[in-house]
């Protein structure tokens, strides 16, 4: 192949890559632009702080839904992170055991279950018995969605830790569990943390599983045993309503959701960088 031809081929390949990147980014840019355009007019201070107004009355905001969403993802993380991390570490440490392959398979299946089905499951388990929608039930449903993601990322990252580190710890008289928790997990921590934040961001945008678990609440509530408002359900409710003002607020809510997910992603990046400063020179 002549040098000329090689250069041409390389230029074409580069061009194709650039086109692919643009195609992938275009929808994202478009969504952001559209959401901002539609929601900006309803975004004001009151939107963040005030409660929804009764039907027909203009104004009001999603203050309770913002707090509600934060509480829900907090509950979900509280439930999913310990379970997910411990399972992930177990899978990485005992990768070939029968039990591990069962857990791994279960995690993959759970990962593929549609979120509405998870919602129904949580409804049957956490709502029906007490006959009340609650933030707890919502957090449980979101947690179930988080677990498989946390499990698999933790497993992957713990596995990636070089075996020399484990050997170094064992050679100094550390037991296996001690080596795992003092050397291997800390070495994998930046990645595990990213996994957790990515999983959190993913469930923050879920609506379906909340519809019949945490339901909705027009009032200020932080009681986790009571129904609670959330941005996603609020956006859904407002979007299908016949009122223009609610439509605008739905767009603003959508904008806020995108922002929350963006902030979570940025926090993830920063946290990783900080931790990596310790891990890598």
């Amino acid at each position, binding site marked *: 192949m002549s040098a000329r031809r090689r250069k041409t081929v390389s230029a074409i390949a580069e061009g194709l890559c650039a086109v692919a990147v643009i195609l992938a980014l275009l929808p994202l840019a478009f969504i952001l632009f559209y959401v901002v355009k539609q929601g900006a007019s309803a975004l004001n201070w009151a939107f963040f702080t005030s409660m929804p107004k009764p039907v027909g009355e203009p104004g009001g905001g999603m203050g309770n839904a913002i707090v509600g969403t934060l509480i829900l993802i907090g509950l979900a993380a509280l439930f999913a992170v310990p379970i997910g991390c411990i399972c992930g570490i177990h899978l990485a440490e005992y990768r070939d055991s029968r039990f591990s392959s069962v857990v791994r398979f279960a995690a993959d299946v759970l990962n593929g279950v549609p979120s509405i089905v998870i919602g129904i499951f949580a409804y049957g388990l956490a709502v029906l018995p007490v006959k009340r929608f609650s933030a707890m039930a919502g957090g449980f449903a979101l947690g179930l969605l988080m677990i498989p993601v946390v499990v698999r990322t933790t497993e992957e990252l713990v596995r990636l830790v070089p075996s*020399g580190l484990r*050997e170094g*710890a064992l050679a*100094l*008289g550390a*037991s296996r569990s001690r080596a795992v928790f003092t050397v291997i997990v*800390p070495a994998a921590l930046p990645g595990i943390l990213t996994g957790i934040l990515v999983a959190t961001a993913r469930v923050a945008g879920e609506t379906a599983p909340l519809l019949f678990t945490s339901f909705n609440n027009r009032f200020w509530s932080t009681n986790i045993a009571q129904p609670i408002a959330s941005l996603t359900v609020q956006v859904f409710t407002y979007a299908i309503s016949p009122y223009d003002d609610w439509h605008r607020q739905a767009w603003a809510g959508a904008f806020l959701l995108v922002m929350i997910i963006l902030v979570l992603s940025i926090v993830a990046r920063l946290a990783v960088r900080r931790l990596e400063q310790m*891990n890598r*020179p």
Partner: protein
Amino acid sequence: MTITIAMPSAPPGTAAVREIESGAAKISVRDFDFFYGSAQVLHGITLDIPDQQVTALIGPSGCGKTTFIRSINRMNDIIPEARAKGTITIDGRDIYAPGTDVVALRRRVGMVFQKSNPFPKSIFDNVAYGLRIGGLTDKRSLREHVEKSLIRAALWDEVKDRLDDSALALSGGQQQRLCIARALAVDPEILLMDEPASALDPTATTKIEELIWELKANYTIVIVTHNMQQAARVSDRTAFFMLGRVVEYSDTKTIFMNPKEKMTEDYVTGRFG
């Protein structure tokens, strides 16, 4: 009161007696075989490693030195599919006997790995790791031990102002000395060193060799090296490995000046390998 111990009736000057005079066997290896899966890499290793001496393991690349040295603290246990046969006894106790406390064994048998493996923690925390595992929590005492170990490993002057920096920011040779300091900190009885000077400059190498000389008074040291001069300088006994067998094991002087086997002579004089 005096107790007279009847010695085995070997005439003075024979090998058996020299062995006892220069330090009793700390580690005894008998018919030791080792397999990775179905591949046998050690064949019937039999040798006695004396207390308070330095034993060097030499031999061409891939002959099983690392495998052997890692068998002495059972570090090979964690390799799936790996299997050992035969016995290795330390102070007369078979370390491969069922029910052996491997964690306790590794506390007594320290190791410096061929590939240096500092933890992604601060320099201080690296050296303090084994001490903390052993239950030492007192800050002052930790500091003293860490400083002492770093001084012995000839690293203190270079790191004393940056003990809280990541160990991974150190150069390759510094990392190697850090791993030596880390192993020394827990004060093992036996120290296994797999090419501890492979990434060191001549000055650091000299310091590590001096350290080995100094440590020998209290420790049993086994060192793998590809550097013949180093083996000749630091060791009392030398074992020449080849294709998973011990070809010759004797006083270092004998191995280098007057080897019995032609292969040993060829290897130490650099005619092959």
